C-alpha cells in the first residue's frame, strides 16, 4: 500500500497549547528557533510510584534489613549486592549504569522526597506532581510549562515532550513540541500484564493474547530490542530508545532545551524482587536509558540538569505478594554536568518513625528541588517561582546547592 504516509514516520508534532492541534513537520532541529543559552533541563516522570527504598536503599539504617524483609537488598560487597554510594546509602544493582556518574559528581540523590500530598491515588498524585500544586484544583497546566513562560523570551518552541503525548507537566499556554518513534508505543509491560487476567477467561482474546506475547518475546529475543522499532516493544527496554532519541534532539544546536519523558512499570504490587527481578529490570531499563541519553547528548550533557521524579513512594514493609503497596516518600534523582552531585541530600527521617506506621516520611518537598534547579540553573526569580510556577508556595524555600556555580 502506498498511500498516505510520508516515508519517514518519525515525526515531530507541534502542539498548540493544550488543544491538541497537531501538524506534521520534519525532524528535528530546523523547526526550533535559536534559544537563549545552552542550558538544558530534562524531567523524567516515573509513573506508578517508584520504590525509593529499593532504588537507594539505606543499608546503613539499622532497621533496613528487618523492615524490608524478603525484598531487602544484600549489602555492598556481597555477591550481586547493592552498590555503595557512601557508608549509609547504596544503589540498586539494577541502576549500575548510573553508578559511574556518582563519583564524577553528576548524580545527586534527594532521598525521602515527596510532595505535600497524603492520599495514595496514582491519578491525583501524578496530577499534583505535574501541576506543582498541593491540592487538586482541576488545574490544566503544568509547572514546567509555567516555567517555560518565564524562560521563553519570545521563543515559543523551547520544550519537547518525548513519547507521543504531552504530559500535564508540559501542558499550558506555551507551545511545545512532541516527538515519538515509529510504530505503536507501548512503554509499559505492566499494561500487558494487567490485561492478562482480564483476558484469561475470554475464549477469543485469552488464548490469542497468550500466543501473541510468546511470539513477540521470541522475535525480540531473535532480533534484540534495538531493531529501530523501539516503540513497538514493551517493558523496561522501551525507555532506552526514547531517552536516546531525546538526547540526540537536545544535543542539536538548534534543538529544544527542555524535555519531558515518561517511564512506567513502577507499580510493583506483586513480586517486585530484590537484587534481581521485575523492579531491578525496570531500574536497569531506566538507568541504561539515562546513560544512553547522556552519551547521545555528548558535550551538551555538561550543560544539563536531569531530574527523575515519581508521584509517591511505596510501603516500607513487603506485602503478601512479595510486592509493596502505595506509600509516601520516595527518592528523586538529579543528574547532569551542572549538578553538584556525588552525594545523597536531604535529612534522612529514619525507618523507626513511619508515616501512618507504614511509609517513609517526607523530609524534602520535591517542589523545593524543582525550585532550586529553576533558580540556580536558569536564574529564575524565586519570587516568581513561588507565585507563578508553584503558586502559593512562597514558604517553600528553593533547595540550595544543587547546581555547580
Amino acid at each position: 500500500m502506498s498511500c498516505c504516509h510520508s516515508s519517514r514516520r518519525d515525526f515531530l508534532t507541534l502542539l498548540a497549547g493544550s488543544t491538541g492541534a497537531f501538524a506534521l513537520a520534519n525532524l528535528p532541529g530546523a523547526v526550533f528557533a535559536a534559544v537563549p543559552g545552552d542550558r538544558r533541563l530534562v524531567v523524567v516522570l516515573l509513573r506508578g510510584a517508584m520504590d525509593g527504598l529499593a532504588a537507594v536503599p539505606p543499608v546503613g539504617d539499622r532497621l533496613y534489613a528487618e523492615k524490608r524483609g524478603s525484598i531487602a537488598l544484600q549489602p555492598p560487597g556481597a555477591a550481586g549486592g547493592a552498590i555503595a554510594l557512601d557508608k549509609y546509602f547504596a544503589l540498586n544493582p539494577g541502576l549500575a549504569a548510573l553508578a559511574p556518574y556518582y563519583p564524577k559528581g553528576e548524580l545527586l540523590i534527594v532521598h525521602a522526597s515527596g510532595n505535600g500530598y497524603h492520599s495514595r491515588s496514582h491519578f491525583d498524585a501524578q496530577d499534583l506532581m505535574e501541576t506543582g500544586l498541593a491540592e487538586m484544583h482541576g488545574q490544566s497546566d503544568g509547572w514546567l510549562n509555567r516555567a517555560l513562560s518565564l524562560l521563553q523570551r519570545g521563543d515559543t518552541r523551547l520544550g519537547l515532550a518525548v513519547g507521543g503525548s504531552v504530559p500535564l507537566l508540559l501542558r499550558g499556554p506555551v507551545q511545545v513540541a512532541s516527538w515519538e518513534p515509529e510504530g505503536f508505543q507501548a512503554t509499559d509491560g505492566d499494561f500487558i500484564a494487567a490485561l492478562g487476567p482480564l483476558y484469561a477467561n475470554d475464549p477469543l482474546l485469552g488464548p490469542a493474547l497468550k500466543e501473541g506475547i510468546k511470539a513477540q518475546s521470541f522475535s525480540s529475543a531473535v532480533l534484540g530490542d534495538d531493531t529501530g522499532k523501539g516503540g513497538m516493544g514493551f517493558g523496561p527496554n522501551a525507555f532506552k530508545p526514547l531517552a536516546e532519541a531525546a538526547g540526540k534532539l537536545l544535543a542539536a544546536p538548534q534543538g529544544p532545551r527542555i524535555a519531558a519523558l515518561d517511564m512506567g512499570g513502577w507499580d510493583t504490587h506483586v513480586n517486585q524482587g530484590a537484587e534481581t527481578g521485575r523492579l531491578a529490570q525496570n531500574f536497569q531499563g531506566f538507568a541504561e536509558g539515562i546513560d544512553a541519553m547522556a552519551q547521545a547528548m555528548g558535550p551538551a550533557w555538561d550543560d544539563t540538569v536531569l531530574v527523575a521524579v515519581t508521584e509517591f513512594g511505596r510501603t516500607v514493609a513487603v506485602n503478601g505478594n512479595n510486592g509493596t503497596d502505595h506509600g509516601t516518600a520516595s527518592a528523586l534523582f538529579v543528574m547532569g554536568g551542572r549538578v553538584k552531585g556525588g552525594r545523597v541530600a536531604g535529612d534522612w527521617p529514619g525507618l523507626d518513625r513511619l508515616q501512618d506506621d507504614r511509609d517513609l516520611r517526607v523530609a524534602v518537598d520535591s517542589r523545593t528541588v524543582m525550585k532550586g534547579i529553576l533558580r540556580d540553573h536558569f536564574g529564575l526569580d524565586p519570587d516568581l517561582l513561588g507565585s507563578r510556577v508553584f503558586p502559593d508556595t512562597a514558604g517553600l524555600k528553593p533547595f540550595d546547592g544543587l547546581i555547580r556555580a
Partner: protein
Amino acid sequence: MHLMTAPADLNAVLAVTRFGFAARAGELGQISSDPRGWALRQLQAQPVSLPADLPASSTMVALMLEQRRDKDMTDRKASEEQIKAVYLAELEARIRAAAETDAPLLERLTHFWSNHFTVSGFRPFVRGFAGAFEREAIRPHVTGRFSDMLLAAERHPAMLLYLDNAESIGPDSQAGIRRGKGINENLGRETLELHTLGVNGGYTQNDVEALARILTGWSVARLDSPDAGNFQFYPQLHEPGPKRLLGLTYNDDGYDEGVAALTNLARHPATSRHIATKLARHFIADDPPPETVAHIADVFHQTGGDLKAVTASVINSDSVWAQPFGKFRTPDDLVTASCRASGFAPPGPMLAQSLKELNQLPFYAPSPAGWPDDAASWVSPESVLRRAQWCETFANRLPNPPDPVEIADASLGEALHADTLEAIRRAPSRRDGLALLFASPEFQRR
C-alpha cells in the same frame, strides 16, 4: 472514587454499541429509558454535516485523468501530495463525524453500506475519490431506497473505474467494431455476486455477461468534456440488441437498460436474503439466527428495499437485544469507538497510521468484497497484541486524559465487568486506566 452516573440499563449499552459506536459521557443516561426508541429515532435524524472543503469526486477524477495524460513528473508529484492530503482529510472527517454526531446510527450505516459497495485504493487510480464516493453515493441513501443506492453506487465514476466498467466496450457497438475491443465483465459480476443477489443467488455466467453488456457505455466524462470526471453514458460504446438477464429480456434502450436491470436486481428475492444476511451479521452476530434473517428479508422484499423500514426491522428484532456483545469490533470500529468514548479524535495522519498498523485502513479494503465482518477474520495472536498496544498508544496520545473510571462508567455502564473496573481503578496512571478500558474484553466487543 465514585461512579458519576446512575447505572444505566444494559440495553442502553447494547443500543449505543450496536446502533452507534460507544457512549459519550451522559449518553447512556439519556437513552436508558428507551434504548430502542433512541435507535429508531435516528432513522429520522438529519445527516451529519461534513467539512465543506472536501473535494467532489469529479474534481479528483479529473486530476487523475490529467495525471494519466501528462507524464510530467513534477505535476505528478504535486497531484500525489494533493491525493494524500484529500485522503487524510476524508479519513479524519469520517471518524470525527462518527465520534461527534448525535445520530451515530447513520454513521454506522454509512460504514456498513460503504463496505458493501467497496471502492478500494488498492486500485491506485481511485485513491483520491474513494472517500468522495462514500459521501456522494452512499450517505444520501442509507435511510432511503436500496435501489437508489445501488444505482448511485454503480454509476458513480469511482465504481466504474474501480471495477473497470469505464473501459468496457460492447463488441458490436460503434467503438467495439472500430477498435475490435470487448466487454469487461468485472462490474457485471461483482454487482451480481457482491452488491445484489449474492454468490448463491442463482445467476450464471451468461447472466454476468448479460449484465456487463447492459452496462456497456456507463463510463466517465473525459477531460475534453465540460462534465469531465462525472458520470457519462457513451452510446457509441453500448452493446446494441436485446439482452437476457435472469430470465428477463432487456430490449436495446441505451442507458435506461442498465437502470431497469439494476432496479429489477434490487427487488430480486435473492437480493433481499443477501442484504438481510449481511445486515444481521453486522448488527447481531457472526452467525445470526435464520428466522431473524428471514424476517429482515421479508421486510426488505415487502417494502421494495426501503432501508428505513429494513433498518427498523433490525432494531426491532428480538435477537438483536438477546445477544449482548456478540460482535467483536473490527479495528476501524475499535478506533472509532475509542475516539467517541474519550472525546478525542486524532488528526488524519495519526488515524491513518493507527488503522494501517491495525490492518484496516479505510478505503483500502483488500478486495471488492470489502472487509470481513466476523471475529474469526480479525482475531489472531498478533492482532490482539497489536490492538492492545494500540489502546495503550491511543491512551498515551490523549491530550487531556479524562478520569478512566468515569469514562468506563459512561461508556460501558452496567456492562462494565467488576474485574475490569478494579483493574482500571488500580492502574498506575490515568492513561494506563484508559488503555485498560479500551482493551478490555467488554470494550473490544459490541
